[in-house]
């Protein structure tokens, strides 16, 4: 899919430029684009280095596990099908906490571990269980407290108020996550329930 879109952009751009008799803009645009790509990445270095440093402190201080504890009631509500004290719950909480703190690097391995635990409970190994779908829904709706990368890019382009999107992002994320949870519940109710054996 990404391959298709990438080729589509280049090919259609080439064709339109050729038809308009402005083929020279293609070369210029290609090098200009490459330059912007590198410039932006270099601009990202400062804020990513800073923020991942801060987040490591949070992790080492046990804030991640603290947040996991805070999220426990929420996890019980979202994943009622998982037996009490199952290891999947711990991984799900860590995954959610890391996502909220914007620790993508830490969130992904936790999410994969959670999926592996859920797979052990899953009676049909090729078909995603409702719990797996819920976990995925939470991850794709992007629970973020601080949109680090965006702040960096805005600073890069000399924004006067680079962080003024934190509030709007929080609200929009809240809405999309709430929608994900509701839609997930709706689909789940239309499916025959899976009876888990104590795993």
């Amino acid at each position, binding site marked *: 899919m990404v391959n298709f879109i990438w080729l589509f952009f280049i090919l259609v751009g080439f064709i339109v430029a050729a038809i308009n008799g402005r083929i020279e803009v293609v070369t210029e*645009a290609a090098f200009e684009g490459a330059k912007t*790509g590198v410039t932006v990445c270099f601009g990202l270095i400062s*804020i990513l280095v800073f923020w991942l440093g801060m987040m490591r402190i949070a992790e080492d201080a046990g804030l991640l596990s603290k947040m996991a504890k805070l999220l426990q009631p929420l996890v019980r509500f979202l994943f009622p099908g998982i037996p009490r004290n199952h290891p999947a719950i711990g991984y799900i909480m860590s995954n959610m906490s890391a996502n909220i703190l914007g620790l993508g690097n830490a969130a992904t391995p936790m999410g994969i571990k959670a999926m592996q635990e859920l797979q052990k409970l899953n009676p049909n190994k090729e078909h995603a269980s409702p719990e*797996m779908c819920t976990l995925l829904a939470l991850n794709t709706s992007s629970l973020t407290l601080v949109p680090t990368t965006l702040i960096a890019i805005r600073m890069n382009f000399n924004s006067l108020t680079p962080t003024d999107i*934190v509030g709007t992002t929080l609200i929009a994320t809240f809405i999309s996550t709430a929608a994900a949870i509701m839609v997930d519940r709706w689909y789940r109710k239309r499916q025959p329930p899976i009876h888990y054996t104590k795993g």
Partner: protein
Amino acid sequence: MYSLVSLISAWTIPILLVFIPLYAVFRKVPVYESFTDGAKDGFDTAVKIIPHLVGMMVAISIFRASGAMDFFIGMLKPLLDYLGVPSEVFPLAILRPITGAGSLAFTTDLIKEHGPDSMIGRIASTIQGSTDTTLYVLTVYFGAVGIRKAGYALKVGLISDLVGFVAAIAVCVLVFG
């Protein structure tokens, strides 16, 4: 509404900045070592994005400079105008679920073109922050455990992306409009 949101925006980061190290010191964490240790990953992450961002920026730049972008946006403009959506951000709705680097590149392009503090720049930033690369997440998570049939997960992910997209526009118009 605006004053509350800008208050949250202004305070969130400074509070985290003071709270996290203070809490860590209280828990006897060697804060400076922890910081530098984690910070190393930041550099790697930024460098790892370079190929993706260069690739996508080249393609988008050609697409835009040739006039193809304006042509497609022009076709959709009447409908989007009717819905109150700035048509320039529309490609993000399609790119976002498919490619994280691609949509980041597109957002960067919008910010560069219209300015970070413009309505379009703010909407694009908010969309980018409040949605995720659904197809990538699905591939990684389900791929890791050998799930072949995603069930309704893809639908839920895409619906939440759509809601996030609409919500981002609505919230930005409400707050910054």
